[in-house]
């Protein structure tokens, strides 16, 4: 990201700016606090900076200019589905009647909000072949945790408390094993076969009376479709276990195939991926949890129920695992997701997945001309390239390629993931990018690979066109400086 010289100077912290007495008048002046409470209950000082509104506006505008989002440029971050976030969704989500609706408003005064949640849930059920969805979990990782809590309670109710193993393929997202650990499960990591898939024969070897859940995503994180998924789900079910679908890659399959039909019992969606919720620099997300019919009563509370033409929040669910968060849902995101559904309908969603897959394959074939693609076959919404050969030949690593892309106004792909591919570059273009953008990205990457052969050192110094050069992560971890300190 190139920037004019003025932006490249150090940006002072808000704490190093302003003067006491520059407060903005948003509310009336309040009385001294000791008019209301005894002094021993009050704090001594409140050392916050005071800046005019203009200075605050300039400060955060400037910080925004030092930040790269989808609105700035192409964002091919694998497994993150950085598609366009339609502006109308934000307008609708921030309407007064949604934004200022208190969560403790009685159901009869929040019928529209409950309808939003219900319509969204029913559409998700049909799209993914599940019996019900809870919109309670806050993000994908929390939905995984909720799903494993559902499984744990389900097995406890069946008297099968010996089921304490969760099987996770080695290509899985890091949240899968971490969520399993938070439920007290032991994780069994499953090696992928030479084709980058889960081999049903391998999974049978680890199945047994202690199997609780097998967590998979399909297509997997290599972007490959697990076409033998039925053999896997059948084997796990025969062993008495449950199948969990990690919905991070759901953008590949809308209108084509459904996790429910593959035999999954539980799944989550990252609506901040597939359903265009803006990622916001790392959240808030939204992680609906879907279940097959036999697990509905275990879903988190509350669950939105429709009685005729009335909707209500149902808290009275004795088998529920309980709530996962303070209030019902990241509701503003449910509004955004529903707006996206309305913009598309079944046909538009089907097309979205088709074009996501088309774009990924187009990039895969073009990039294979100059970088290794360890799994050279038709992929789904994403694929993994490798800089291993390039590193051997030139010393230039995946990290250097990533930083060089930043110099060329592109966000870098996900790197060093999945773990089974050395020097991995995981690329997910999404359906909203045009052929021209994809071609420009290919040209940039090609030029980087050519530069690597001619002048590798220049790439190892990248980025040079950004507001700062390569950041010293080791120093940050060795000498943690996590806050400004008024006394330093």
């Amino acid at each position: 990201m190139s920037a004019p010289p003025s932006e490249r100077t150090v940006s002072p912290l808000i704490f190093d700016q302003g003067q006491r007495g520059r407060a903005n008048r948003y509310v009336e002046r309040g009385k001294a606090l000791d008019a209301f409470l005894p002094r021993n209950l009050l704090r001594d000082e409140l050392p916050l900076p005071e800046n005019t509104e203009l200075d605050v506006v300039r400060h955060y505008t400037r910080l925004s200019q030092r930040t790269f989002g989808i609105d700035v440029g192409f964002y091919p971050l694998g497994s993150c589905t950085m598609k366009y976030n339609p502006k109308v969704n934000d307008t609708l989500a921030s309407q007064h009647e949604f934004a200022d609706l208190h969560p403790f408003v009685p159901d009869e005064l929040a019928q529209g909000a409950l309808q939003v949640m219900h319509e969204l849930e029913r559409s998700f059920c049909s799209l993914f072949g599940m019996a019900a969805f809870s919109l309670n979990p806050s993000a994908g990782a929390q939905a995984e945790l909720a799903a494993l809590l559902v499984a744990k309670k389900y097995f406890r109710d069946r008297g099968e408390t010996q089921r304490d193993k969760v099987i996770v393929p080695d290509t899985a997202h890091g949240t899968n094993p971490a969520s399993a650990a938070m439920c007290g499960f032991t994780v069994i990591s499953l090696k992928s076969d030479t084709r980058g898939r889960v081999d049903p024969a391998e999974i049978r070897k680890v199945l047994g009376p202690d199997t609780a859940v097998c967590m998979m995503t399909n297509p997997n994180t290599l972007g490959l479709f697990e076409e033998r998924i039925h053999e896997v789900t059948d084997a796990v079910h025969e062993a008495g276990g449950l199948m969990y679908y990690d919905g991070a890659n759901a953008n590949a399959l809308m209108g084509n195939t459904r996790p429910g039909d593959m035999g999954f019992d539980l799944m989550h969606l990252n609506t901040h991926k597939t359903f265009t919720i803006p990622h916001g620099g790392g959240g808030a997300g939204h992680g609906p949890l879907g279940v097959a019919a036999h697990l509905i009563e275990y879903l988190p509370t509350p669950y939105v129920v429709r009685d005729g033409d009335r909707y209500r929040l149902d808290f009275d669910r004795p088998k529920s695992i309980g709530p996962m968060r303070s209030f019902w849902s990241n509701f503003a995101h449910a509004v955004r997701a529903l707006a996206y559904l309305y913009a598309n309908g079944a046909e538009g969603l089907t097309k979205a997945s088709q074009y996501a897959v088309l774009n990924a394959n187009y990039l895969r074939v073009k990039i294979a001309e100059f970088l290794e693609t360890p799994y050279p076959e038709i992929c789904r919404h994403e694929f993994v390239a490798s800089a291993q050969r390039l590193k051997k030949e030139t010393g230039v690593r995946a990290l250097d390629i990533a930083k060089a892309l930043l110099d060329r106004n592109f966000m870098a792909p996900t790197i060093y993931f999945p773990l089974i591919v050395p020097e991995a570059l995981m690329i997910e273009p999404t359906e909203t990018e045009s052929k021209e953008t994809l071609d420009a990205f290919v040209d940039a990457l090609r030029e980087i690979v050519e530069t690597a052969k001619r002048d590798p050192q220049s790439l190892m110094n990248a980025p040079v066109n950004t507001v700062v050069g390569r950041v010293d992560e080791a120093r940050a971890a060795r000498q943690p400086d996590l806050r400004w300190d008024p006394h330093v």
Partner: protein
Amino acid sequence: MYAPHTQADIEAMLRCIGVDSIDRLLEVPQALRLQEPLEVVSALPEYRLRRRIEQMAKRNSGADFVSFLGGGAYRHYAPPAISALAMRGEFLTAYTPYQAEVSQGYLQAIYEWQTYICLLTGMDLADASVYDGATALAESAIMAIGATGRRKFLVSRAVNPNYRAVLRTYCNGLDVTVDEITLTADGTTDLEALARAVASQEYAGVAMQSPNFFGNVDALDAAAQVTLSASGTVPVAVIAEAISLAALATPASWGAQIVAGEAQSFGVPVAYGGPHVGFIATTNAHMRRIPGRLVGKTRDSAGRTAYVLTLQAREQHIRRERATSNICTNQAHCALIATIYLALLGETGLRDVAALNLERSRELATAVSNAGIKLRFSAPFFNEIVVEVGRRGRDVLAALQERGILGGIDLGRWYPEYENCILMAATELTTTAEIGKLAGALQEVGRVGAAV
């Protein structure tokens, strides 16, 4: 919608790939093919989808009632400058700032957020956010469990019941027992009961909320701090109304080692429950147990100041099943909103807001007392009060609702002993006229009730 390809683009791309149709790219075994048409809402052009969802919005009349609802979500004034800045596409459409060199702005904003939370709580460090106050409490319990190796956790009954429920959900997963501390007659935590419980040295931590769910200041006293310290139990402070941090003694000053908080009050809309924004602040001793992202200040290759995600060895994408938490996505954008709110308000503005909350809630207390309604407790409070209405709280609330007023929260929902009680909140947005209307309606409802 939102897909760019022309027919010519598609054909050119398919030729390049070497297949004759998109269907070829999407082949799945016969058994996996979609068997039936999808039942999804039907596609609408943008102007009609707007109308449709705007119609749904209009069916939320609760947004326009005179409201005294609080209980963990609070209406406060949010200057329009917040959304003008936070909704800038560079912020809104960024991912987690893994590539530091093109994310310096967002990383700096999060570093500022971490600092603001430290200044407000008095703690050494704070994380880049967690989902909300309830999950902040649950994750704090996990920190305490990790720090002590103990498998029991203690929580005051005066902690927000939704937070306690989420704490139980998480602890069930870990097979950790949660026990509760009883209340005093004055709506605060029974510190003597707390002292007795922790003497067993079985509890990893104990959570107290101040102001507590009833609005009362409910901090540890000096004796309880000594007892806790001797028992090795980690004190966790819960903050559900972040505006109180501008007025009340900091959690650090009353002995908290971990603060689990909710910062929705800092400019984030109530939005029917979310997204809001949780935070965890703690002491340096617990630095490597804190969940979620942390932004650190460092240098770039030329020695310039730079910011970066740090101490990632705690996190799921590095450590997998040995991570301190599974959290990946957090609430960065809400944390940004809160940061901008705090920058706009500054010391004076935030203190004014706190003072006005104290003032209006006392005005409310006086008005309902004058209307013949009894205040249930006499402990010092921040911006919420509990009133006893002489019959079931929910019946009185229903009667107030008929008069266009959301009078508060029925405490009988969680506390059978308080089924005749209502929790009422007043903020800087509560007007004298609204308080008058409530007091009048309460008198009227009281008379109707008496007649029945």
